[in-house]
């Protein structure tokens, strides 16, 4: 029963709406958030986060212009948006675009540095959740073929 409802939630993708209508509890919404990791397109992954994020200049995303190897692409994300509580990393052209989410409790800076894999040259999106709203910025990284190719 419970499983089925969770399954439904996964399929639905409109979590924010369900939560705000009282159909789903926040706990269930958070559990189902894992479904974002199953999304196969950027749009589906973004939808799983709840709403379409607004472009924001208050998010700083650093990543190299060119990555010598797609297996390791260093990123840093920081947010100047008040009440930032979650940072998401999405790699547009990966088979599963949602790469990571970081929950930032009070007292922790809205900043993380991590390293992600990229199958090909792609945009990386940094999405920030603050005060229940979503914001995003993106950056393009070119992945090159390194070495002798042999």
């Amino acid at each position, binding site marked *: 029963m419970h499983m089925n409802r969770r399954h439904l939630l996964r399929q639905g993708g409109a979590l924010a709406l369900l939560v705000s209508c009282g159909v789903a509890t926040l706990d269930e919404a958070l559990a189902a958030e894992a479904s974002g990791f199953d999304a196969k397109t950027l749009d589906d992954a973004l939808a799983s986060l709840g709403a379409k994020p607004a472009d924001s200049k208050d998010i700083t995303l650093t990543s*190299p212009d*060119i990555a010598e190897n797609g297996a*390791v692409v*260093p990123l840093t994300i920081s947010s100047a948006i008040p009440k930032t509580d979650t940072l998401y990393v999405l790699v547009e052209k990966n088979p599963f675009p949602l790469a990571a989410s970081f929950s930032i409790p009070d007292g922790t800076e809205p900043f993380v540095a991590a390293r992600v894999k990229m199958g090909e040259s792609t945009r990386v999106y940094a999405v920030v959740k603050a005060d229940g709203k979503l914001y995003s910025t993106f950056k393009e990284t070119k992945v*090159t*073929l390194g*070495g*002798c190719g042999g």
Partner: protein
Amino acid sequence: MKRWILAAVAVMASHAALAESSSDAIAQYRAMLADGNPAELWEAKGQALWKEPRGPRHASLERCDLGQGPGVVKGAFVRLPRWFDDTRRVQDLESRLLTCMQDLQGFDAAAIAKTPFGKGEQSTIENLVAWVASESQGMAFDLPQSHAAEKKMYEVGRDAFFFRAGPYDFACASCHGQEGKRIRLQDLPDLTTRKGAGDAFGAWPAYRVSSGQLWSMQRRLNDCYRQQRFPYPGYVSDVTIALGVYLGVNARGVDSVAPGLKR
């Protein structure tokens, strides 16, 4: 005619600009990775393995003599390869670790030498070289050249460096004998110069982001020979040790940064 030349110069200039900006971007990429080299994970294991009683004799490596006296690890890396009286050979770090693993711990050195990289006791050696190298970080290379055998190995190493063979006619020097060149986007150090040899010899062992593995100098040389389309160089064979002497002596005075971080 003049216009044609001007056009050609313009084309060449734009190529140079593109090459430069790509190289800058790669430098930026490497700088972003400089902190948090996963080689540290190998160093930590290597340090523990050095002290751990292991092998048929259930002994640690704490009495292993890497050239600076039994148990002295600090500074050993920047003075290898060197001559050892007990084995009557010039040995590099990995060859010497094999000697210690055999003499102190009772392992079969020949069997380890035949083990593929990354497997079994070869992975032990990868951890050990990461740690031993890290203990000399920031120290200048200072390989001894006083023993006749050390001098000879330098000459042999130079000969091997320029030795062209195989279906592609490659020598080490084909790619590493000029300054400022690249394969794809990877800079090729000129290993005949102090700086080039220092940058290269002084960065291995290194964590390779492409494979997520730590590569020792032996593995680096092994893969160079693979790409040179040569047959398979034996692990710690004389040609690899001679090349180590040649590179290490060329790198004299350059500070070691190993373990490094590579593509």
